[in-house]
């Protein structure tokens, strides 16, 4: 393994010193294809992931989360518990937020899935991503993809969202670092809610 692909350099201001964090996941995407011979129990499903149609051969036991992470190579959605109890795997399924660990990939032929990687428009962050950044809506970052996708799903579910409703309606997303105050503020900001909103 070459030094360049392994060293993860975190950069301020986007300058190129060493290899950026993204390199790791580029590696992830290229390394996955074809590592696993498909047993004959595999089934073909077609998913539209972040706007791109993907045909996958999946073991019927494979969760949507594992399919996204290991086969599509999108590791933004995280496996925090694999029990539906932490929210780190939240994705949008046909526009609604769901836990991708609690559903099987084989059940979603033809469905549209949006992960955190699909929220930005080109280089422009989604307003929710920007608000999480600006308001420090995370610490370790592990639950963050799920928090952001969940918050985007929340705004779609409730266009008339009030600030006071955010805590209850985000309670499916645990943040063990407990950046909850900032997450709340970030969602309120992205939703254009004032202090009393």
């Amino acid at each position, binding site marked *: 393994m070459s030094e360049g692909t392994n060293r993860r350099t975190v950069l301020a201001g986007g300058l190129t010193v060493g290899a950026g964090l993204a390199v790791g996941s580029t590696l992830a995407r290229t390394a996955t294809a074809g590592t696993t011979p498909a047993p004959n*129990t595999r*089934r073909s499903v077609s998913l539209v992931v972040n706007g791109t149609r993907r045909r996958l051969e999946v*073991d*019927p*036991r494979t*969760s949507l989360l594992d399919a996204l992470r290991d086969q599509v190579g999108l590791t933004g959605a995280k496996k925090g518990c*694999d*029990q*539906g*109890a932490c*929210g780190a795997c*939240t994705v949008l*399924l046909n526009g*609604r*937020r*769901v*836990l991708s*660990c*609690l*559903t*099987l990939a*084989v*059940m979603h*032929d033809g469905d549209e899935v949006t992960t955190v990687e699909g929220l930005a428009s080109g280089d422009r962050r989604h307003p929710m991503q920007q608000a999480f950044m600006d308001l420090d809506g995370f610490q370790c970052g592990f639950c963050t993809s799920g928090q952001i996708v*969940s918050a985007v*799903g*929340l705004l779609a*579910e409730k266009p008339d969202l009030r600030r006071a409703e955010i*805590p*209850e*309606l*985000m*309670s*499916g*997303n645990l943040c063990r670092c407990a950046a909850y105050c900032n997450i709340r503020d970030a969602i309120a900001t992205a939703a254009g809610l004032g202090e009393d909103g």
Partner: protein
Amino acid sequence: MRTFDYTSPRTVDEAVRLLADHPGADVIAGGTDLVTLLRDGIRTPTHLVDVNGLGLDEVSWQPGGAVRIGALCRNAIDDPALGRAYPVLVKALRAGASPQIRNRATFGGNLLQSVRCPYFRLPEFACNRRTPGAGCAALHGDSRHHAIFGTSENCIAVHPSDCAVALLALDAHVLVQSTRGTRRIPVAELHRLPGRTPHEEHALRRDELITAVELPAGPFGAHSTYVKARDRASFAFALASAAAVVAVRGGVVRRSRICLGGVAPKPWRSTAAEEALRGRPLDDAVIEAAADAATRDAQTRPDNAYKVDLVHGVVRQALTELREQS
């Protein structure tokens, strides 16, 4: 997880035919409970019948005012008319799980979810529900969450559903279908007490599929609420909960339903509490008497004796809310 054959039928007839043909089949709808049971090896179906393609996801108001909720309607259902006619149902749904889970979990699946006893969910413990005759480790274990009503020497687990408690309070029925035809089962008779057969969780035969839940016509149901006590503010199962429906006419309670969650192996109706209310005004003393009656005949253990007080509290809270609304 053991591997299985996966099928996604397009019609109810096709689905029930699959169930009839494959004795080892399980139905998957939202999957929010079943997937974890598969992963932990607690359920090991040979076939998985995915019913998500069957439709069955509409709310239809019947002539006469009853309403039929398709079995595949999600628990996130946001129907203002339902909210007006049956506030207890909408409140119970919103008190359950998390938004992500409610977006997937279905009415049928919610009713049929397995108990949340950790001794059931961890394969290393003995459990009569999982393996008939194996014994019940919970009996001598940590019983803080366990039932105080309807238990047997074979099982003390609680049914975890909030929605089912509300449906019981609303005298709901489930409509089921099999290759033999259709039938209606009152929610009150859907779940079984453990007795000597705790592995028989509900009255559905293994080839039957719930197609809808039916709620009787109002106005009974319109004056109702749901109160849930739990270990944290949200996203936790009930330690105790109360669904209360009252009909007050002429200043006195004519009819009521007081049902409890988190305290029995099935949604638990307290006829004693209802008796305490009947023909009386909904005042402090009557509320107190009903709350007290709701705890009658509780069989507690040292770890769960507190549930008696919690039942008292949630019933009082629910009835107090209803009094303040009227």
